[in-house]
């Protein structure tokens, strides 16, 4: 019964959003309504979560012990981003993710997701897969 109610609430939510159909498309990502993203960018989000980046950078990339990525990605180049994630900044507490296959395989997707957050195109940390 509870799940039925939840479903109803979800449906209502979706319907009200569907009207907006706000689409942002760049060569990095596609975002609809600020929360639904293309498959590659979605992999970036999954990688962000799996690697527990939020423990230092905050659940919303707003920064905690680590810097706010919504800010950093405004200036950090794609190459520097990939270098930092791969090699880490050990003295500052940023790990090297070179041993993580998921992170290494999804560096570009992770960049796309975080860039989308930093650009403001992705309006919520948790995203859904665009169907």
């Amino acid at each position, binding site marked *: 019964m509870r799940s039925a109610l939840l479903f109803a609430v979800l449906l209502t939510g979706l319907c009200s959003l569907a009207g907006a159909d706000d689409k942002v498309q760049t060569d990095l990502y596609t975002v609809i309504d600020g929360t639904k993203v293309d498959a590659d960018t979605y992999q970036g989000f999954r990688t962000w979560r799996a690697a527990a980046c939020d423990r230092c950078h905050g*659940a919303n990339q707003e*920064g*905690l012990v680590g810097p706010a990525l919504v800010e950093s990605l405004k200036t950090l180049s794609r190459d520097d981003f990939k270098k930092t994630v791969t090699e880490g900044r*050990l003295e500052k507490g940023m790990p090297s993710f070179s*041993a*993580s296959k998921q992170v290494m395989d999804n560096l570009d997707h992770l960049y796309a997701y975080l860039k989308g957050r930093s650009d403001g195109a992705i309006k919520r940390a948790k995203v859904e897969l665009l169907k």
Partner: protein
Amino acid sequence: MKIPIRLLSISLGLAAAVSGSAVANQELAKLSADPSNWAMQAGDFSNHRYSELKQVNAGNVSKLQVAWMFSTGVLRGHEGSPLVIGDTMYLHTPFPNNVFALDLETQKIKWKYAPKQDPAVIPQMCCDTVNRGLAYADGKVFLQQADSNLVALDAKSGKVVWSVKNGDPKVGAVNTNAPHVFKDKIITGISGGEWGVRGYLSAYDIKTGKMVWRGYSTGPDSEMLIDPNTTTTWTDGAVKAVGADSSLKTWKGDQWKIGGGTTWGWYSYDPDLNLVYYGSGNPSTWNPSQRPGDNKWSMSIWARDVDSGKVKWVYQMTPYDEWDFDGINEMILADINVGGQAKKVLVHFDRNGFGYTLDRTNGALLVAQKFDPAVNWATHVDMKSGRPQVVSKYSTAQNGADVNSKGICPAALGSKDQQPAAYSPKTKLFYVPTNHVCMDYEPFAVEYVAGQPYVGATLSMYPPPGEKNMGNFIAWDAGTGKIVWSKGERFSVWSGALATAGDVVFYGTLEGYLKAVDNNGKELWKFHTPSGIIGNVFTYQFKGKQYVGVFSGIGGWAGIGMAAGLEKDQDGLGAVGGYKELRDFTDLGGQLTIFTLPN
């Protein structure tokens, strides 16, 4: 490979038991019996954090002033406290774990030890590089470094006497805990529950650094040093043998091998029972769907024989954890009345929000009550089974992966984390620094990769709905399980408390205040130190004067929890409100401040 080590452990244990093992213990017991010293992190073996000194008392504490200060030269979170032995103070820093010996007369640095550690361990301590302090015995100062090396330093010169590797940092097994000397052994744990580290407690010989025993938190009986017939637990209203494979049968497949149960808290020791008490942490991962079962013996209170490591009894507080309620908080040993009877008890304020009183001779459950009224994830602890009765709405396992369970109290950092409580044998009350924080918790599937984070949940933390204070400093009656008084604090109280015979109780706040309250919780004095306090208050006497000291230096999970809190900001961009508020009060910076009364 495991069997020879165990045989070796047993033979070494026997040898030690015969060859005057009590010497170091007697020395330490004597040192700690003199309130001039602060010879152990908790002041004594029982984790009381109580001093007989009363020169500073409720009548004059308002006159307390700064005697001297010392910069540690290190930023980040400063937990634990210095030690004082005679005319020398020994103090530690967060990573890189420098150690100083200070002359109390002149405050001159007698020696400094600066270990070289691989910076790769820094990110493995995510999210802060804390260290909870040193131990002293047998003319040696013991340092448990972040990189897992346990080092014995000559107390006179600071030279390394011996060093032993206690874990493998490559898989995330690092250290933050203080080592504890009980008898002729130095006992230490391991961190890394968020990296899938399988927890253990290890005992090393204080003279040589040779391992005497190691007991794991999970796995086969032989590796946990559990005897299925003689090791007991609280079951069905009685103390009963745990039976064979008590851990293995509560895990799916080989998950116990990466199943956590780490051991980074404060241990205690009862010389009469010859038992060491400590707690084990969360099962890995934070996504409960990946590890069905009770996940024994994560989240448990342990009693082990100091000489052999053999488990006398074990009690699991949070079977099948779904919230990251590590059971590592301090175990306080006291002799109090429970239900009108004098009992030798162990008192433990768990992350899960329940204050436990157990019979420490056999692990029988006596009292389990909420020490923060906000606790909502369980209605109560069933006294017969010892199991918390979980509220479905707040069960992240029942709600399932990829569902955000909202409004769970307490948050993952618990109604109390490692910040240790104090016990006054004078008032028979426990003085407890607490968190008053709730959370949303969304588990998700995560794959294990050695040396990579193994978390599997996204959390956000905030004060209980409609409330502003994120912490309370409380007095607790462990015989009845009742809050005697509660003093609200704006932020979590993340500093270890100190009770004294002078009827003054001290604690620090995240804004950076060191506060003194009387036995009724009335604030008598406060002083704003340079940074937020997550260290533990300590006291000593030198040349006839009593001194009270504390580390300041914001950091640890408290800083992070606070940063994440105050404003429920799931969707926001930019820094959350709480972080800005913290910045209004304090910034990083490690310093020791010592107070005394004017002449």
